[in-house]
């Protein structure tokens, strides 16, 4: 995209080797280098993901006849609560922006770091502090929270479990997310390389920009809602308590004003990563650059106005129900625009089939199922039928795991050689895909079917009529986990002794591929000047 840079990787220490003033582990947890912070987030979020997945497997086991009494009903409640809190607050929300956003954003816009490097490190401290508090809530007070990750009142006010501390952990995690958003917005406004106009900026930064605004605008509402739950539990202020004149429905509104936009915090960065992967492996520019950039912003804007579609059965007025149903249909439009643009990008491209592309295509397939089942629930009549059933659980996992999860895996495969300078076994990456894809669909498609048949979510046990569906889902969970183990084992092996990857193994044309792998501490020897749109391929030069 710009003139070749004079980079001499062999003369410049990479961010992995250069230890700075402090050595060893201290050199990592006190480093303000965006690349090191990105890896700190990577290691922590993947660890939490592994724990969350393990809890998921246990929950699936409980639904299988011989294991009905593996855990008590109370423990089951605690398990799905903690599974949700872990996966949402500790993996999916801090998945792409803090890991790949931190690592790639400055590289992709030609900057040496983010706007506030120290704040960036503090964000990780907030993240770890919130995680530790959430973990402590399991073993202190009345034991692990049993409310579900939504902490709905009045039950969350009445239960004797340690909801207060779990909520406090989520409150602290919110700070981490919010500060990262502030950091990225400022970075994108102020630190783009000379010549990189807004419409020359790659689309992953655009996605991070849209995400940053949601983080800034929505997270404070969650913060105050959680503060109110804590105050309600500690001193009984009465705002959510009907006995004191309060209203539980107010809690649901405040909670979803954050938590619905939060699903776009989770999905937009994954969409951005997919948008980077497709042009690189189709060897042609992205189709509809502006449509993709602005649809991210449109999702962020419209997505902030649809929260009450979680509450169609909670007793709102019919007019409110219709309004939120309409808005929910509208928010599907910009997502569909992206799907069409991705597909059109592949059309007449010279496809270079590699593992990241396979995972990116899987993202499009699974996300489409998740998105379409989402539109189904936006329709009021269907919603009443499927509300609080496994259909919701299936839909949510198609979007969040099939979407954000596979987007995370695709991004990891795409940028792994850049981050660590080593290449993994492509064959193992393909092999891992089969069990992941098959297991995933066995597990979550069964849930969609079970939900339509009437299986309620969060139930400890089920009627015999649901046996087959649960059996397929549970076996699917084993196959899925097998795939995940192969996937991550492959990366760990590559991390230890993978072949050297070189600066640009995929032939990408965005800025991060112009510097060494792994990048030097300062990212670029000379800050590049941008003269072309992003994703400009030059087949005549072999690029």
């Amino acid at each position: 995209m710009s003139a070749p840079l004079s980079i001499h990787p062999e003369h410049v220490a990479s961010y992995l080797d250069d230890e700075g003033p402090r050595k060893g582990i201290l050199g990592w947890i006190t480093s303000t280098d965006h690349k090191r912070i990105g890896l700190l987030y990577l290691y922590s979020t993947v660890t939490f993901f592994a724990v969350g997945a393990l809890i998921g497997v246990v929950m699936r086991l409980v639904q299988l006849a011989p294991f009905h009494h593996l855990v008590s009903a109370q423990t089951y409640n605690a398990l799905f609560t903690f599974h949700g809190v872990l996966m949402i607050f500790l993996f999916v929300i801090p998945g792409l922006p803090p890991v790949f956003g931190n690592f790639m954003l400055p590289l992709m816009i030609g900057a040496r770091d983010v706007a506030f490097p120290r704040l960036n490190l503090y964000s990780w401290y907030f993240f770890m502090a919130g995680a530790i508090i959430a973990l402590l809530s399991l073993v202190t007070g009345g034991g692990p929270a049993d409310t579900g990750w939504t902490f709905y009142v009045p039950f969350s006010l009445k239960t004797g479990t340690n909801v207060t501390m779990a909520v406090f952990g989520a409150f602290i995690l919110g700070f981490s997310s919010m500060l990262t958003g502030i950091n990225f917005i400022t970075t994108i406004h102020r630190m783009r390389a000379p010549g990189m106009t807004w419409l020359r900026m790659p689309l992953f930064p655009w996605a991070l920009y849209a995400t940053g605004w949601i983080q800034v605008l929505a997270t404070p509402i969650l913060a105050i809602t959680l503060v109110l739950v804590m105050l309600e539990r500690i001193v009984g202020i009465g705002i959510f308590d009907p006995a004191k004149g309060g209203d539980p429905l107010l809690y649901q509104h405040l909670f979803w004003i954050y938590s619905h936009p939060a699903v776009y915090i989770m999905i937009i960065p994954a969409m951005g990563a997919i948008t980077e992967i497709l042009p690189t492996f189709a060897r042609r520019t992205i189709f509809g650059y502006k449509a993709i950039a602005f649809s991210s912003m449109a999702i962020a804007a419209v997505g902030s106005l649809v929260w009450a579609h979680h509450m169609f059965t909670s007793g709102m007025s019919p007019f409110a129900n219709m309004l939120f149903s309409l808005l929910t249909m509208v928010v599907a439009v910009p997502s569909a625009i992206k799907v069409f643009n991705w597909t059109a990008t592949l059309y007449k491209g010279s496809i270079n089939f590699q593992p990241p592309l396979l995972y990116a295509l899987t993202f499009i397939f699974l996300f489409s199922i998740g998105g379409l089942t989402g539109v189904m629930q936006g329709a009021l009549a269907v919603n009443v039928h499927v509300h609080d059933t496994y259909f919701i659980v299936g839909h949510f996992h198609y979007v969040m795991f099939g979407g954000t999860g596979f987007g995370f895996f695709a991004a990891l495969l795409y940028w792994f050689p850049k981050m660590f300078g080593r290449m993994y076994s492509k064959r193992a990456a393909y092999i891992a895909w089969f069990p992941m894809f098959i297991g995933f669909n066995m597990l979550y498609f069964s849930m969609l079917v079970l939900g339509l048949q009437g299986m309620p979510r969060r139930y400890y046990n089920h009627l015999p009529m649901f046996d087959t569906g649960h059996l397929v889902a549970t076996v699917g969970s084993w196959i899925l986990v097998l795939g995940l183990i192969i996937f991550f084992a492959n990366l760990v092996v590559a991390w230890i002794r993978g072949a050297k990857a070189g600066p640009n193994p995929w032939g990408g044309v965005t800025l991060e591929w112009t510097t060494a792998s792994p990048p030097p501490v300062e990212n670029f020897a000379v800050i590049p000047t941008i003269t072309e749109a992003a994703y400009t391929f030059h087949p005549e030069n072999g690029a």
Partner: protein
Amino acid sequence: MSEAGTIHAEEHHDYFGAKLGMWLFLLTEVLLFSGLFIAYSYMRARYPVDFHHAGGELNAVIGVANTFILLTSSLTMALAIVAIQRGERGRSLLCLGITMFLGLVFLVDKAIEWTAEFRHGNYPGAHHLAGQPPGEQVFFGLYFTMTGLHGVHVIGGLLVLAIMTVLVARGQIDRDRFILLENTGLYWHLVDVIWIFLLPLFYLAA
């Protein structure tokens, strides 16, 4: 100022970027309170009469006095920034001192008020309040939450002001590098603005 100093400052400090980041942070603060304002509006629409009665039990004189105190502290805060921009360190320190003093007076007033409400039994969990109509219970729940959260912000602001005073005294904030003090000023004004909304909503609700 020396030329070398200027270049150095430009290299490591993006004045506009620092300000943008601060405004974004202030936006999150506004939104934090907005959740409570939503709750307030909803509850007031639901219990207009109870809110009217409960508002009458607050001491409007102290409320208005506190408004003047905070507004004056915003003035001295702004003067402290102007002084440092002109390189008048002594005057800046004096203004910062007055700002912190007024902030403390505000908190003392607040403490007097809260003590009075506690004595009247108008606090969540009190036997007296539990016997009042639901709207009054919610009113005092909101009153303590919102003025309490505001008070926490005043305390936070005072701590930051204390740090800024040290930095000014040490010369780490001077006429060339005053963005930290300017951002602190922005924060202090925001705390002030939020109070200006709290005053009519609670003290003048009667």
